[in-house]
């Protein structure tokens, strides 16, 4: 876990896209639908209304606020981003090698990966926001913590508006 002051909430933003631009253009919408489907299966239905309605209400605004004052990455942050990059590259490389060796087991592997994806983010909350074509996904572990951030943000904005 990153050692970050709880009083100063920070979000890591990672932009992903397909390796091949043409394929990415063709498959992006389908990919979003696939993520939607997967996220729908892992969302906590008991609290889904809270997650969707309350969070969506302010998340876009909050993220826009954060984007407006993008922080220059400190040494600690740079380390995290370098680690993410390295770990992701390693995983992709391992998978490519495994596929070469066990091409016939690919279908099974894909099914396992779907299970892993469901289990992997099962303990988390994921929220799809943004307009069509500009989708963004928010990953959270503790919804309460995020709602606190949102409430603080909302309250702070109200104060500023009243002031």
């Amino acid at each position, binding site marked *: 876990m990153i050692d970050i002051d709880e009083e100063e909430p920070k979000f890591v*933003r990672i*932009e992903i896209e397909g*390796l091949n*631009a043409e394929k990415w253009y063709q498959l992006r919408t389908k990919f979003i639908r696939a993520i939607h489907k997967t996220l729908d299966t892992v969302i906590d239905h008991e609290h889904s209304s809270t997650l969707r309605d309350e969070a969506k209400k302010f998340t876009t605004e909050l993220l826009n606020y954060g984007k407006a004052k993008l922080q220059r990455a400190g040494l600690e942050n740079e380390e995290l981003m370098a680690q993410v990059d390295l*770990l992701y590259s390693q995983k992709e490389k391992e998978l490519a090698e495994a596929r070469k060796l066990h091409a016939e087991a690919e279908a099974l592997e894909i099914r396992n*990966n779907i299970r892993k994806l469901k289990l992997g983010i099962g303990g988390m909350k994921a929220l799809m926001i943004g307009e069509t074509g500009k989708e963004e996904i928010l*990953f959270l572990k503790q919804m309460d913590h995020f709602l606190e951030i949102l409430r603080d943000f909302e309250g702070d904005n109200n104060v500023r508006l009243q002031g």
Partner: protein
Amino acid sequence: MSTFPDTQSLEHYSDKDLILAIKQGDKAAQDYAVKKYGHKILPILQTLTTRSRSLESLLKELFSLSRKLITGINNSHHLKPITILLKAADIMITTRKQNSYPAPVPAAISLYFDASQFDSTEIADIIHLLSDTYRIIGGDALVIKKMDYLDLSPVSRS
């Protein structure tokens, strides 16, 4: 015995048939034309005859070239320069088409992680699993385009 029509029958000729008969060397037809249209018609008739011969000559040359082209097609190595020219033309057309209608750039997808709750392994895992999902639907792989931090602390506190 002449195969050409007599003067009497020439009277029934249309101008088109008369010109055709003159082009074929019908002296009676030429005389009839001079009689009908006057001597001014002679230079016109001469031009027509010359052009007709020139056209015949050009047609012969064209047929000769066509035969050479057919021979060239049969021997593929003769076609190499033509192939190169066609490819160059194709590239030019394609490039012009691409320059005129640039493909829209598909937007990247932004993922946000609460930095106080996720470590690098968990983030890499999620991206890797999303990449797998992308592969399942027919994509190649996902790449990380950009990474940065969003400071969400209120302005009053920062």
